[in-house]
Every structure is written in C-alpha cells, then in structure tokens.
C-alpha cells in the first residue's frame, strides 16, 4: 500500500475503537495472547527466546544504564508495597511486550505512517518508512518501543564475528535511527499464513507460535487467532469475559466480577490491547 493511499484512506485503517464485530474487522485472523500470571514464574526464558528469534542486539552495560535497552520483551517485577519489609507473598512478575493495541496510541502520532494496523490485527512497524521521530515511543503507555540510538550491526558489543551467523534471515537487522518493537514474531505468522493460503485453508490453532510462547517452560503464554472461536486463545478470552472492543468489561461494572481473573493492562486508556492477562493468585491461608 502506498503511503499516499494510506493517508487518504486513513479512516479505513485506523479506528478510534474496534467495531465490536470481530468478523467484520478481521474476517480471517486477529492475533492475540493470553498470559496467566499465576503460572508465569518470571524465569526470563521468553526474553532470551526473543533475542534469539528477532535479531535483538545486546547493548552492553553503559547503554543499558542510559536506558537504551533493546529487549522487546521484559519481565517487570513488583513487590507488594504493604509487605515492603518482608515479601511474604513473593514477588509479582509480568511479561510485558507490545500489546498490539487495536486502537494504538502510537499509530496516530507517526508523521510518516510507519506504524499502523494490519488486516490481521497487528500493530506493524515499517522499518524503511520510519524516520526516527520517536513520537510513537513517547505516546506508548506500555513503554515497549525501542529506538536504535546506534548502528548496532557496527557495534562491537552486539554482533562481533562470527555471531552474525546466528541472525535470523527471516527478518532484518535494524539500523540507527529506527524504532522497533515486538511484532508477535510476524515472520513466523506470515510463513504460516502463506503456507495455509497455498493449501487453501486457515492457519490451525497451535500451528504457529511466537518464540516467547514456544519456549515458555510453564506454558503461561497462550497465543492464537481470536477470530477463530475454537482457538485456545479465543476460548480463554471468552471464559475470562474480556471483549476486545470494550474499555470497561461488563463483569467489572458492578465491582464484583465473581473471581474471573482476566484483565487488560491500562484498559481505561482505550488502546484496546490484544494481550489478556490472568491475575496472579495467592492463597492467603498459607
């Protein structure tokens, strides 16, 4: 799609909110996730898997100190502030990556349309359109966009020979001045979609997983096609009574949601994220 046409038909691609009719918005695919925080152990296997799959550079200690980290996926760790002296209930972990918002705040501020919605419900990042304004990063409520302050392929810390031999040829290595972020491993999705199309079918549930979900030792990350009502991820969204197009779920309106654990982070900002989290659980009798 040319950029001229994209800006001309902007309304077609960029909605203030999803319509609520998933079939209309995404007739074939709407990629989504569900992460059970009671099963996530915070082990960081997903983080390393993401480095391995997506050609994410290591930046070294100095740049990390300056906040120039590149990890597309991070595990946030919080403590219960009431138990600050002794954390009797352990720590709180949460994998945080691009939430692939259906009405992403990053999209509206990009002056060149480098980030926009794909028909299968991803928040894309077109590297060779990006001019590095960094408005998207400033506007992202989840802080999951990472900017290449350096030309990492040329930096000794990232890929000295022969480490470049490990780089995944299915996606680029980004250069200086480019914004990047989690893509739900779009290279894997496109390969699976292409195979399915050749075979005249849709991608089957479980046929393709992003690297994080594939490696997760406890299986806390569930990934799939929300447009397929029989997919595991669609079942979980339904079971947890979270609907993509709502900024406040019906179950949360009364104050008592009956112990259904599903929620989306900062839902009230009306970004309509595609990642569902399931609340961490603690047995207070113990």
């Amino acid at each position, binding site marked *: 799609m040319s950029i001229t046409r994209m800006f001309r038909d902007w309304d077609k691609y960029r909605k203030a909110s999803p319509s609520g009719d998933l079939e209309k918005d995404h007739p074939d695919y709407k990629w989504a996730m569900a992460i059970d925080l009671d099963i996530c152990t915070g082990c960081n296997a997903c983080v390393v898997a993401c*480095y391995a799959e997506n050609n994410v550079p290591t930046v070294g200690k100095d740049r990390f100190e300056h906040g120039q980290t590149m990890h597309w996926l991070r595990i946030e760790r919080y403590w219960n502030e009431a138990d600050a002296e002794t954390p009797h*209930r352990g720590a709180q972990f949460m994998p945080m990556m691009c939430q692939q918002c259906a009405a992403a705040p990053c999209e509206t501020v990009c002056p060149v349309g480098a980030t926009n919605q794909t028909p299968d419900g991803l928040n894309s990042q077109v590297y060779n359109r990006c001019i590095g304004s960094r408005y998207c990063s400033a506007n992202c409520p989840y802080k999951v966009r990472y900017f290449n302050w350096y030309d990492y392929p040329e930096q000794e810390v990232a890929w000295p020979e022969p480490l470049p031999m490990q780089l995944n040829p299915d996606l680029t290595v980004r250069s200086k001045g480019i914004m990047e972020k989690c893509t739900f491993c779009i290279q894997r999705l496109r390969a699976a979609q292409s195979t399915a199309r050749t075979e005249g079918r849709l991608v089957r549930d479980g046929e393709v997983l992003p690297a994080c979900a594939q490696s997760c030792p406890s299986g806390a990350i569930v990934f799939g096609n929300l447009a397929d009502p029989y997919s595991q991820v669609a079942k979980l969204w339904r079971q947890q009574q979270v609907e993509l197009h709502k900024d406040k779920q019906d179950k949360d309106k009364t104050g008592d949601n009956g*112990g259904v654990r599903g929620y989306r982070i900062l839902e009230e900002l009306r970004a309509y994220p595609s990642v569902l989290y399931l609340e961490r659980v603690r047995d207070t009798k113990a």
Partner: protein
Amino acid sequence: MNDIDRRKLLKLLGWSSASLAVAGCGNPPESGTGTAEAYSEPGDFNVPGVGVYYASTCTLCEAGCGIKGRVREGRILKLEGSPECAISKGRLCGLGQASVQHHYNPDRLKEPLLRVNGNLQPVTWDKALSLIAEKTKDAGDKFAFLTGPLSGHLKVLVQNYVEVLGSKNHFVYDLLANKANQLAAEKVYGISNPQVQIAKAKLILSFGADFLNCWESPVHFSAEYAQFRKANEGKARGVLIQAEPKMTLTGANADRWIAIKAGSEGVFALGLVNALLEDAHHAKNVPASVAEAVRKYDKARVDRETGVSEEVFGRVLAQLRERSPSLVLSGPSAEGHIHGAQNAAAIMLLNVVLGNVGKTITAPAKIPFPQMAPAAGDTSALIAFNQALSQGRLQTVFFHGANPVFTAPGFMKVRENLKKAAFKVAFAHYRDETAEEADLVLPLDSALEDWGTHVAAYQPDGVQIHMQQPLMERLYPQGTRSLGDVLLTLLKQRRPDEYNPFPDYYAYLKSAAIKNKAAFKDAAADDEEFWYQTLSHGVLNVAKPEPQRIALNPGALDLDLPKPAEEDLHYPLRLVPSVRANFRDGRHANLPWLQETPDPLTTIVWGSWLEIHPKTAGRWGIAEGDIVEVISKSGTIKAQAYLFPGLEPNTVAIPIGNGHEAMGRYAKDVGVNPLKILDPVFEKSTGELALHATRVKLRRTEDNRTVVKDEGWRPGVVNTQMNRKIVATLAADKIKLFPEE
C-alpha cells in the same frame, strides 16, 4: 564373535553388565514427525530459505533436555525444546536458548595452544597429541582427569582412558552438586534420586529448593508446576510455601515465603514433625522412637532458633494437615551447612510422616547401563584433587568441563597448587582461568558441532538416552576437535587392537547404538534404519526399565540436630553465594544474551551485586549503589549494594557466576566472584564444601555508582505500580473455577 570378545566389546562401547543387551529384536519403527530428519542427509542443508529442524541434546546444564535446532543454509539459528523428550516436552529455558551463543562466540578457541617460555602459542594438533603421548607414557597414578558432570559414551571413553593409563584418578567436580541431598535421600527413602511429583502435590513445602530455576530439572519442573497451579472444578490450586534465607525465583512464586535463619531448616522441619505426630494417622507412619526423638523440637525451640513466628509455624502446620498429598523438598540453602545432610534428612522425614512417599515421592527406573549412568560430581572431588596436587602426587592433569581456578574457594589455593603439576592439559572452548594456567590448551568443538550420548540424572518417565548430533559443520574445521575423537585417538595409541575398528567418535557411537539396539523401544530391524530413526528422534527409550525400590527406615535417622552456631560478633552476617540459572557455576557468563537478560528478582544486568535487607542496610549505613567491602575470614571482595527485601535480615547474598579474570570479552572483569571469600567449612557426613556457612562483615567505601537494572531508576524507591492495575493479585478462595477441559 565369541562370548569373551563380545563382553569386552560391550565394555568398550559402554554397555557392560547390561542385562537388556541380549534381549530379542525390537518392534517396527514408529513413524517420524514431519520436521525431524537425520543430520546424515546432507541434501537438507541446502534448501534455500527453508529452516529444517534436527534433534539433539542441550548440554548447558545436567538436566539434559532434548532440543531441536533450526538449521537454514547450513547455519544453526535457534533452538527449541523437543516434544519427543520426556524432560523438555517441547520447552526450553533461557540458558538452553543461549547455547547458540557458545557456538558462535567470538572468543572461542580456534587452535591448539602450547605454553612456550611462559606464553601460550599456537601449535598443531599432531604436535599436541604426540606431546600428550609422551607425557602420559608412564603416568600411572600421577595422572588425573578432572571433569565436570559426565554421562553417556563420553564418560565411558574418559574412564576407559584413565584406566588404560593405569590411573584411578578421574575426579568429577560439580560446584552445584547436591551430594548432601543424595545422601539424605538414601538414608530416608533408600534411593538417592527420588522423583518428585510436583503436579500431583496439593501443597509443596520447599526449603530452598529452587526447582523453577536451577534445581535438578527446571524445565520439566516448570511444566509440572503449571499443572500444580492450575485449578478447575475438579482440582484445587496447589499451594507453595518456601522457607529460605534468600529468596530464590521459586520463593518469589510462593504463596507464603518464609525468611528462615540460615541453617535452622532442620529444626523447623522437626518442629513440624513433632506437631504432626500428635495426629494418630501421622504417628502410624513412623516408629515410636521418632516421636521420642523429636519431642525436644517444641514450639519454643522452633521459635528461638528459626526466627519464624509461631503464627507462621501454625499456618504451615495447618496447611500440611489440610492438604494431602503434599511434597516437602530440601534444597541447597538447607544443605550448605556443617549439618547439611542431617537438615535434609529431617526435611525428608516430613514426607514419611505425611504419607507422601509413594504418592509424590516415587522411585525412578534404574539406568540399565552403569558405565553410561551420569557421574553427577561433587565438591569433595575437587578437594581430593586439590590435596593430591598440593602434595605433589600429580604430574599430568587433564581438565574438561570444569574451571576450578575460577570456581574453587580462595582458601584452596588451586592456582598455586596447579603449579606443582608439570603438565596440565585443558580441553576447553575458551581461554578461561584454568586454561590460562594450562601448558596445553586443546580447543573443542562446540556442543552444536559435536556428537554424543547423554543420560539425564533426573529421569521423569522411564529411562531415555539422549542423542547429541552436530547441528552444523564445524566453524573452525582445522582447529577444533571432538573430545570423543581425541580420546579415541589417544586410546588407539595404547590399545590399537581394541579401538582401531572405530575410525572416529561418530562410528564409535553408531556401532555402540546399533550393537545394543534390542534394549530400546521400537528399534527398527534394519541397522541403518534404526540409526536414522535414532538421530531423527534424538531419544532412545529403554524398552523395559527396571524400577528401583523405596525402602523406608525412619527409625535409623539421627535426629539430634546441633545447637545453632554461636553468633560471631566480628562477622555478624551470613553470606549466601546464590545461583543464577543463567550462569550456573559461571561457565556461561560469557554469553551476552545472558548478561543482558535481567536477573529476575533484582532486574540487574551485566554485573554482580550484594543483596542486603533494607533494615540491615540502614544499620550499616549502606545505600543502594554503595560499593561495599564484603569481608570474611578468608578474604575480601568489593560489591555494589542493592537493597533487597527477600532476605532474612542477618543474611546477605552475592550471585555466583561473574567476576571472571579471563574467558573473553563478555565475562572478563564483569562483577565479582563470591566464591573467593568462602570460609573452609565442610558438610560433616559428605565432606562437601558447605557453601552457605560463610560469615561476613561489611565496610562501606566512599564510592557509589548507579545500579544498572531494568526496574525503576530512582535508588531506594520500591518499583511501584502507582495504584494502577498492572500485576493484579486475587486471593485463592475468590477465583472462579471453570469446568475441567
């Protein structure tokens, strides 16, 4: 072939005393899965743009997960867990993922090095091997081979080689071994390596066993843990209670985390035993003598010695009474003391009292080939090796898979003692600290270039033998070699008749597998087909694994735990050298992905730190980022302070793994090594190093630097959610249960 020759051959091939070896033919082969193909089909290497998956085995820790490597245009790109492996079941941890960075590491050794006039200089393999032949000629007991944990055919070859040289000195050293645990299990259950059925337990009480991160088989346990936690209308959610002086990742996931005083775990356990024996259904599980012996562990003593409040003790007790079967685990923080094995036995006794044995504590199958069975290693091996060195009893020493110059405590003076051995050979991937002391450094193939067989110590289901095969051609074909090949070459020099039939390690492994294929499930009748299937699947399932038997004898346990050690006013704090799953004993510190992946609990990257409780820090006047001298009786190191609430206040912790003086650009001069200041304290019944028994004091320096970490930047401010719903928590009795799927 006559019978005697056959027996000898089986010994060469590692199958000796295998009763299964003479069984009949196997069943037809099972059909392969779509993606798995044997490496020996070279055509697959050159399908442009298409990644092909080959099976192999992860070698980064002893769990031995089956992996599948994605190969494209002849390059290995990424590793995944193998769904056919009973251990990994298609999953892989971060450490395993990073294996490709060992393979492509820019600091890998590319050619043999010989020390000439004090400097390591390039030398040819031919020269190196003839030098070894010369130096080992009449070695006998003056020769020693120090290795890390080994299993499979590499272990067979190492042991055969040591034996051929007329030596008995094969030392298997593992800093992180759990010898005290094994000894206690032997005493309590009659077997040293029981299976722990995490998924079947309704309650887990763990004393420092970090099973989600670095204890025995973390990938397998993580999958089990998910089952343990999942609740539905038919199954309650499992409860995890963790008691330890320094919070581990498993502790961070606990429903109740208990900051117990270091070394008092046994007292807490026996206090629970004492209370539980008031119940008739628990009392019948042990002889009356046990009840008598534990009577002195009353609530007052538990309260006094463990630092755990009566209220928390009561909660744990109530949970143990309510939830059955439960599972009680003993881990390194309970075992790293003088009375470590006794602590572990006291903890395991809880499983007997609670009737968990047979339910959540089960017996694994016997590994049918003793020669190939894993040699787990321990620290007493290092102590014995070091003693032999210091007494000048060793002339020629080989190293593989162990870096004692880095991992040995400072008081052992390993570097100095090594000077007494005239000829030291390091089989290595990097110029690590031990290689820097060696006279000859021989570069090995990476794990992704090499062949091998592995037998995991923790077998969750039957017995699987894992195949390791190259996932790509050698990066340095002229420089690196397989240790298996080198050992065969050396063995051929000594025993040509026996070893000449095997042109190389590959041929050796292949003939070994084929020779014994009847022992395996679904082995194809045709040898080539069997070998092809073996490599495709990456695992061999032993056809009829023989069960081991649990034999309880709780009456024979020594339940008289020592009084807590006197407080040392000069060294008032306990030091925990904590284990990071990503670095283990420090051998993976040169992988940039792992350096840059934050430590899960502190979120710190690229370095070392001193974890100190905020209360203790206040008392010592220490703030986050302060450079602090950590002083033990055995040495001093400087580390950067990080205020961490997950500590018993009299405990400080420094992670193991960093502080390398060599080993390449990513490891050298990053962080500090807490092992250097350990006190000479030993576990009394195993002779193991007591890793958790060092006492330290602190001295603040004037230096303060920013702690480089992923969490919030302001020092001293708890990373806060600002009252937004970021990580939400729900009480277990509030969760809505759905029907079982």
